[in-house]
């Protein structure tokens, strides 16, 4: 059965590897192009700016498409993009954008004001079909647009029914009218991903889409006619990974020029030759959230969490400094407000006597005074049979029924907590938080570490008591602030916070175009949230990146210009240029030697094996 022949076949099979490998290798490395290679975890879900969700999608989209006004400049400031300049009318209701005259779409058609008008109309005409992720965020930048006019080919006038503050730093990409006008808007916002072979993404940006292979790579070609100046290299490749340590091995081996890092890997990479690491401040927050849903017929949360004093006591029991040191390894800042210091003028910071400091005895004191006593002496406090939810310092709690009857099984202050499994830092925080809560007589009864989709389910249905989660905000504070409004319950709100006073302020800042006045309102809103504690903001984690200096130069310091990071906008990509002598990524001689050795060994083995058998069988 298994004769000499089968064995020879087997060896021939083994030989296949090295021979084909050697045979083809010369041809493989023949052509040298200057190529920037970026390693990324997680393949984009879509290259269609109308329905993309993942941040890895926008990393690519922002290179293929341009915005009109670009809200995300190198210093997180609004800068000209397709609109080279703009004016706002006195009342803030008319914006006039002047479009550059030398921009073209990747298929050669010139970019005109009509394209900008078309894009805005396209978004505002069908805003609610898919009111989930990005679309609803995009729409908030256009929510009060009434109509758009084009007096000439290079001027766009946007008319607002009410002034829209966040239009100053918008986030939406301009698409070509001549391509999208034939596309059903519902399809555009649901099924089309621009990965379709017959519908590639056509933009006006610095890179032209060339090829995408799912879960492997996306290849872009430099747009040599880019109106801001062509990129100084030929190709840009995003290579996607499913395992971070593999990506880092490739990076250290010199195959990748730029990667994002996690807290664990940052120290490991630091200080290697030809490698520079950055930890730059981002727009992200990490928070301990509370279920504040006042509708007790729907909410499955613990009613004691509706009492601001309980939430405030917990806030006093969280040692943020230690969490940043231990869980984030110091790669972040201690969090206070729900906005980040990167929101610059909008950011509110509590002064020294305003701060809710880490103080366990104060936390205990607040709970004692509020009547949450350990009646049965088991170390866990009990809720009084009724909570009289009193008005807090700002007088803002407004419950439909101020007396809440506590069901017998929810008397004890035992809370469930939910954590996203993909967030190693927050999982590391869990035991510390549990310990501090124990010291103020609060128990964590369930610790659920679940996948992101389950987190979303649990949050939508109001099943949780506490949760650890995070946000990456837009640069304009509007969306971040909206998350805490009553209207967002059932949509983007995860804490079910509701406060009419806050809602009113939100509407006010939404239409306030005077920056000084808006800043004032925005700061007041942050202060309300800080003391009402729907969130305890634990940290502002840094974004961690690394790049190689042996193949490209001109890297922008991300710690100084976070907006120029290669993670989201094109500025960093445009600044890069190859160093004079580009080194090929493959180490040719060693490869040849190894391939040769394999071939020789296998041939010798095969010959010996067959030779040894021959005399006996014949």
């Amino acid at each position, binding site marked *: 059965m298994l004769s000499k022949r089968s*064995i020879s076949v087997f060896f021939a099979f083994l030989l296949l590897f090295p021979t*084909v490998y050697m045979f083809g290798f010369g041809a*493989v490395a023949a052509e040298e192009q200057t190529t920037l290679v970026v390693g990324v975890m997680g393949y984009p879900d879509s290259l269609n700016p109308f329905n993309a969700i993942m941040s890895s999608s926008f990393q690519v989209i922002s290179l293929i498409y341009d915005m009109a006004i670009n809200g995300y400049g190198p210093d997180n400031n609004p800068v000209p993009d397709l609109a080279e300049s703009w004016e706002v009318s006195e009342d803030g209701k008319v914006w006039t954008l002047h479009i550059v005259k030398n921009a073209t779409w990747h298929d050669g058609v010139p970019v005109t004001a009509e394209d900008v008008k078309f894009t805005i109309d396209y978004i505002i005409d069908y805003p609610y079909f898919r009111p989930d992720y990005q679309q609803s965020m995009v729409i908030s930048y256009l929510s009060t647009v009434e109509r758009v006019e084009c007096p000439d080919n290079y001027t766009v006038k946007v008319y607002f029914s009410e002034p829209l503050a966040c239009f100053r730093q918008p986030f939406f990409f301009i698409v070509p009218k001549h391509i999208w006008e034939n596309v059903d808007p519902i399809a555009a916002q649901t099924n089309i991903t621009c990965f379709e072979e017959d519908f590639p993404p056509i933009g006006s940006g610095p890179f032209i889409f060339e090829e995408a292979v799912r879960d492997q790579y996306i290849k872009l070609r430099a747009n040599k006619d880019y109106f801001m100046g062509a990129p100084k290299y030929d190709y840009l490749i995003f290579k996607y990974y499913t395992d971070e340590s593999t990506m880092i091995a490739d990076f250290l081996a010199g195959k990748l020029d730029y990667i994002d890092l996690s807290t664990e890997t940052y120290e490991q990479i630091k200080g290697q030759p030809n490698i520079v690491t950055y930890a730059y401040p981002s727009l992200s927050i990490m928070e301990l959230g509370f279920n504040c849903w006042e509708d007790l017929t729907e909410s499955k949360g613990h009613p004691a969490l509706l009492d601001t004093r309980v939430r405030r006591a917990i806030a006093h029991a969280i040692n943020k400094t230690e969490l940043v040191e231990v869980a984030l390894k110091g790669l972040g800042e201690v969090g206070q407000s729900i906005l980040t210091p990167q929101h610059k003028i909008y950011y509110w910071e509590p002064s020294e006597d305003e701060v809710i400091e880490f103080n366990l005895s104060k936390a205990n004191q607040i709970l004692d005074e509020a009547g949450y006593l350990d009646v049965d002496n088991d170390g866990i406090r009990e809720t009084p049979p009724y909570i009289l939810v009193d008005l807090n310092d700002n007088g803002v709690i407004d419950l439909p029924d101020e007396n809440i009857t506590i069901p017998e099984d929810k008397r004890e202050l035992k809370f469930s907590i939910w954590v996203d499994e993909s967030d190693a830092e927050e999982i590391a925080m869990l035991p510390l938080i549990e310990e501090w809560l124990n010291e103020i007589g609060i128990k964590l009864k369930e610790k659920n570490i679940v996948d992101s989709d389950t987190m979303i389910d649990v949050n939508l249905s109001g099943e949780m008591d506490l949760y650890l989660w995070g946000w990456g905000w837009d640069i304009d504070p509007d969306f971040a602030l909206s998350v805490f409004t009553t209207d967002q319950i059932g949509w983007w709100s995860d804490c079910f916070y509701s406060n009419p006073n806050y809602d009113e302020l939100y509407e006010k800042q939404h239409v306030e175009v005077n920056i000084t006045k808006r800043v004032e309102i925005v700061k007041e809103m942050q202060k309300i949230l800080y003391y009402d504690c729907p969130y305890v903001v634990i940290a502002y984690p840094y974004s961690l990146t690394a790049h190689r200096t042996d193949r490209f130069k001109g890297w922008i310091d991300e710690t100084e210009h976070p907006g120029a990071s290669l993670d989201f906008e094109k500025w960093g990509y445009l600044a890069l240029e190859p160093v004079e002598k580009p080194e090929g990524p493959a180490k040719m001689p060693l490869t040849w030697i190894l391939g040769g050795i394999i071939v020789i060994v296998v041939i010798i083995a095969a010959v010996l094996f067959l030779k040894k058998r021959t005399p006996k069988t014949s």
Partner: protein
Amino acid sequence: MRRMGKAILMKTVNAIITIFAVITFNFFLFRVMPGDPARVLLPKQVRASPELIEKLRRFYGLDKPLHVQFMNYVVQVFQGKLGYSFAYHEPVARVIMDYIWNTILLVGVGEGIAIILGIILGAVAAWRRGEPFDLTVTALNLIFWSMPEFWLGMVFILVFGRYLKILPISGIVDPWLFHENVFSYVADVLRHLILPSTTLALIMLASYYMIMRNTLIDVTTEDYIRTAKAKGFSEKEILWKHAVPNALLPTVTTVAIGLASVISGALTIEIVFSWPGMGWLTYQAIVRRDYPLLQAIFLITSALVIIANLFADIIYTYLDPRVKI
């Protein structure tokens, strides 16, 4: 021979019935899940309006009576319409086609090496039972068998990718290479295949090796082997012509089971080497709650396991005339 033909026919009919059972199970599994199926079909983050739900119910035919739905489902399965993946915004069949070949290549080569090498080494080790060759190879096999596959993969990544820098450790091709001909492309793919398939082969080797070795040890104590020795056949001849064919039977069963994983993929190896295959796709379908995709993967995997077993049965009858099916 005619009886055998009939038996094979019966086996095939059995397999077809089983596949139908799987299809039925798949259909109802999807419908007994809590909640409105139309809601389940939507991504979780969408808060759907009643009109949208109604529209979707009609779109997916969920407004029709159950038996009509079932008939439609069966017809669609045979037309290759496996539904629409909302995680990938594409027909499920097309998504699967993107991944299935990657898996067949990786697991096919890995398992192939493991099977061939396992049988040969197992046979030699059994023949030289107790000798240094047997002891060494058995020990090595058990060591690899006990290793977590992702760990072995990571060791390879460190050694070959990071320190020696001689083999690619991620993906299927190097996207920065510009291939001039199809040979250089094939060579690139093969280069990428070396580490993941070797990892898989080393891990899987023991299961074929141990079965082959142990069965063969049993076989070599049989009388007809002694008879063959008495007749003066050479040792090698007795081994390969008399003993091995009889020892192959249990190995065929193991191979049939192993080949099923050609389709279901080798998740951890795929993840470590960023090799997008069926294991990774299944994992993504679960994580992203892509029910239509998951349903199709279940169906294809079960159908292929059934078919693989059918072939194993048929091969069995040829290898061993004593087996009546």
